[in-house]
């Protein structure tokens, strides 16, 4: 959740450049609504109730961030919380 402000800013600044921000969580709807309201987050958040998708991504600790390019290939895999500037630097690597 600490990353929400950075993610929200990325969503605002990079959507026009072709970035889709998506959050995946095992939290329940109530908790998601609370967190979204708290951070005024508008980006897409989907529910992975039993962590099946997290397992597919091989995630054992959260937060975890992946950048997937236009062709659906994973280009960047980041562990732990990151700041906005760190995300920006990673986005440069994928040409954004």
């Amino acid at each position, binding site marked *: 959740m600490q990353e929400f402000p950075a993610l929200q800013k990325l969503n605002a600044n990079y959507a026009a450049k072709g*970035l889709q921000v*998506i*959050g995946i969580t095992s939290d329940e709807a109530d*908790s998601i609504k609370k967190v979204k309201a708290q951070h005024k987050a508008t980006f897409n958040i989907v529910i992975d109730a039993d962590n099946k998708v997290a397992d597919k991504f091989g995630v054992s*600790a*959260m*937060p975890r*961030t992946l950048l997937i390019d236009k062709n659906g290939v994973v280009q960047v*895999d980041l562990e732990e919380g990151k700041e906005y500037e760190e995300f920006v630097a990673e986005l440069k690597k994928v040409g954004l």
Partner: protein
Amino acid sequence: MTRIWLVVAGVVGLTNLSLAADSKNNIATAALRKCGRAYQRLRAVSLRTTMVMELAESGRTRRSETQATLLAERPNRFALKFDADEARGELRSDGVKLITYRAEGNEYLQAPVPADFGGKSLLRQPLRLSPGTSLVLNLLRSEDPTLFLNADLNGAELLKSETIAGRRTQVIALKYPWEKIEKGLEGKTGKALRGHVAEMKLWIDERDGLVRRVQVDLASAVKAFSPQRAPTRFMMTDSFSEVRVDPKLEAKAFDFAPPSGAKLVKSFSRATPRALVGSPAPTFKLNDTSGRGASLSDFKGKTVLVNLWATA
């Protein structure tokens, strides 16, 4: 009459309680002093260390176990050799230089020996000293090990006696300043940890006064430097076995001979990228809170940033 007796009974009860706490503290203090003196007398030690990390977070549990052999000689020569696993390699100090060898990449680093074995130059390396192993080296390094242990004797408490690996130990709980475990912490993590205390438990051998096990509870510390994380359990436990006091150690035990083809580097090359990088992303189809579905294939032609998170 009845009322007076009640008051007296109350006072007796309180005194007993504080006496119990006092004596637990006294026993703990005595055990820590004995431990300090034992390390002061120690010239060298060899042991096996088993480092166990247990992390329960976001409904997942991770446990890793690493074994290493440690040879150490007062004041600052040591050789810590990790058994084959993901942390394969070795850390050693010949008294002047600190050498870190990482089998992955066949590379090694050299640095001056830090002022403290919990020092930052160790923390930056891919091969780290665990808190318990670091504590033992610091005790061997310290001119006054008792003083080093006496971080907060008032808070030290005897929890119980326990036999581990055939040795009777006293289990002592103490609050330990993070600065003493990982000195010189820098950056965000360092700032967050400064001033924090770690909940530490020491298993001190009743006979020889040496530490047989160290357990550090990292759960509260993690919350301090990474508020979005809330592990329900995060323990680092170092257990020492095959402890030999003052063994004969040959000088060459601390020499480092680079394995064939090993490169001396200024910093280790980046860790191998994760298996996922370079591969097609796993597909998914999930619903948002209003039941609207989203799948990765909806975003074809876009760069997608996937952030996996959890509050609990």
